[in-house]
């Protein structure tokens, strides 16, 4: 084989992975794309298995399909049958379908269950250069490994089950470079909230986001997952970070990672996947890390964000009538006054969980600032590890005690109050400081409930003060902020 660096023009990782997985052109820009890894869960797969049965079709690559339960699973008790009979039925349906087709299920009894986007990486199933699909929009998370990972609908879950392929239109690629060093007290969540605030909730439509530059190079895998997770909140179908030594070190030794000589061959293959020097991009955005502050949302989509020290917008300052209407609707739902600070608003609930921020590193960071403090009176605080592995690891290290002693409820693994499909829900117009990914109206289970998205450390600051707070002021040196 000739040396690819001289033989072919420079390409992005996206282009290399796309080309390698292209089965055929279906015309009109539609491509039949091979999906290397298919992840399924209990909420968007039963209808797809039903469609397969109706069509008399089987599962094409059951050994490349992996299942877990996360969306609907209760986090307070795993005693079966579950209190919610429909939740119980959906989980039994997943068990039946995976058993019938020979698909591995990381069930609640395995110690390996959790939010699907945590289980894939933990098990070493998520690997560089692969295509991944899952009936959940936050599948973009897996891009942290240099995979191209798409959230899909249920009919596409059917397509991937039946054929291991699906139809996709090729995306443009936007490189988002964040250079320099993050200020103390600024986390991966702040970086992605800042990016979405800057480019807008629909700014990424038609794009894959490539995250590059000093800040992502320096991030650990779990931080990269936080960033890639919210690509979809910026409208981008997927987002990725080029694989590097950090990626390989994370994967080595995990259950589904290659072993021995196969490992060495895989690393060599993965190394060659990173975007080439001089690769063409459809757009490049450069951000200075020093401009990023702890960021929270003030509105009803993740693009409506603000630095914690800044006031929320005033519709009178909007660029056009449509923006003014959007701001007015959001302020009204959130019960905020135009131009007022969001800092200092009283909270009712602190939710620490979700596929954005419920990994071990999130718990270590949060525990560091929470230790020795207590949740403010009147605040309902729940901590929901994203997976059984994270929960067990926290308990091994005594981190559960820090949360319990502070007044948090310590829960089992699942999506929980991120989307409120299980019993964890806001009530009435409660205001929730949340480490999750969506602040849509009604998202956390009450039509009038209010969600403010922020990093786990900022959730801790809100929990202990009882209000939306600047964690740097609340925790000072414990948050790495110089006196």
């Amino acid at each position, binding site marked *: 084989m000739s040396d690819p660096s001289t033989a072919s023009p420079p390409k992005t990782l996206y282009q290399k992975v796309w080309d390698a997985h292209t*089965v055929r052109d279906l015309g009109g820009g*539609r491509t039949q794309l*091979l999906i290397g890894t298919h992840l399924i869960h209990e*909420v968007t797969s039963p209808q797809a298995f039903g469609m397969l049965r109706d069509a008399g079709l089987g599962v094409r690559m059951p050994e490349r399909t992996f299942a877990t339960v996360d969306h609907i699973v209760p986090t307070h008790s795993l005693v079966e049958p579950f209190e919610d009979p429909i939740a119980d039925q959906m989980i039994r*349906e997943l068990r039946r379908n995976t058993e019938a087709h020979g698909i591995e299920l990381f069930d609640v009894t395995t110690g390996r269950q959790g939010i699907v986007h945590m289980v894939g990486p933990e098990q070493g199933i998520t690997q560089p250069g692969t295509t991944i699909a899952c009936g959940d929009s936050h599948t973009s998370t897996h891009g942290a490994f240099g995979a191209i990972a798409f959230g899909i609908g249920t*009919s*596409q879950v059917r397509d991937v089950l039946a054929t291991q392929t699906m139809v996709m239109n090729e995306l443009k690629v936007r490189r988002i470079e964040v250079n320099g060093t993050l200020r103390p007290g600024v986390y991966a969540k702040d970086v992605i909230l800042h990016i979405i605030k800057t480019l807008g909730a629909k700014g990424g439509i038609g794009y894959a986001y490539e995250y590059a530059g000093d800040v992502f190079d320096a991030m650990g895998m779990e931080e990269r997952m936080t960033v890639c997770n919210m690509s979809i909140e910026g409208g981008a179908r997927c987002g990725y970070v080029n694989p590097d030594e950090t990626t390989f070190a994370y994967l080595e030794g995990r259950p589904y990672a290659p072993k021995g000589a196969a490992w060495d061959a895989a690393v060599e293959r993965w190394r060659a996947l990173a975007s080439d020097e001089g690769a063409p991009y459809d757009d490049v955005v450069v951000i200075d890390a020093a401009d990023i502050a702890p960021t929270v949302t003030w509105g*009803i*989509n993740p693009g409506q964000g603000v630095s914690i020290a800044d006031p929320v917008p005033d519709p009178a300052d909007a660029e056009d009538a449509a923006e003014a209407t959007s701001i007015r609707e959001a302020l009204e739902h959130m019960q905020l006054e135009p131009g007022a600070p969001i800092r200092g608003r009283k909270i009712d609930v602190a939710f620490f969980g979700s596929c954005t921020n419920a990994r071990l590193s999130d718990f270590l960071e949060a525990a560091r600032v929470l230790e020795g403090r207590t949740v403010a009176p009147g605040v309902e605080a729940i901590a929901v590890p994203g997976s059984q592995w994270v929960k067990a690891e926290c308990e091994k290290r005594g981190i559960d005690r820090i949360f319990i002693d502070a007044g948090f409820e310590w829960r089992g693994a699942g999506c929980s109050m991120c989307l*409120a499909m299980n019993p964890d829900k806001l009530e009435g117009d409660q205001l929730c400081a949340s480490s999750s990914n969506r602040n849509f109206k009604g998202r956390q289970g009450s039509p009038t409930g209010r969600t403010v998205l922020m990093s786990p450390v900022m959730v801790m600051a809100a929990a202990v003060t009882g209000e939306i707070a600047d964690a740097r002021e609340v925790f000072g040196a414990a948050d790495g902020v110089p006196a």
Partner: protein
Amino acid sequence: MSALPPIPEVRGTAVVVPGDDIDTDRIIPARFLKCVTFDDLGPALFHDERFEADGTSKGHPLDAPEARGATILISGVNFGSGSSREHAPQSIHKAGFRAIVAGSFAEIFFGNATTLGMPCVTLDADDLAVLKATVASEPATEVVVDVANREVRAGDRVFPATLPDGAHGALLEGRWDPLGDLLAAGDDVERVARDLGYLPAEPGA
């Protein structure tokens, strides 16, 4: 797979759901995702926007008497953002809608709707505003979403519409549900899988 009917146009009365960034949580709240089929999702459409907790109407446009029987839904930019839940376009379809006109669509939603044979076309901002005003003032106006000619007509007005080539061709050729095309690839899937280096040599079990 049997051939699907081509969808050259959708014709009927329309209803306007005002606002931009209408996310799929609003279209169908998560609690309605507790189902193992999509059959009963119609009444859940925009549920919490339409009804108070006690079931009384909030006066949503979908519940206006003149909205009865509407087959075309009109909204703003970034329609269908957020969750990948196919329950969202399924609930719109099961509630009787057969086409959506908006300023722009979130991509997962667009793909999910197209797979159901429900065309999603976009108009530029000025035309969309005129269309909304026309439907608001004359709800009985017949609106035509002309897939073949990529235009939307309302009364004597004609608006150029955008519909990407892939969806355009798929709707006109009766290939909007792609499963038949995907199954027809045959050995190409094995060939690509073999060359990737990370998939099993003998796929399938």
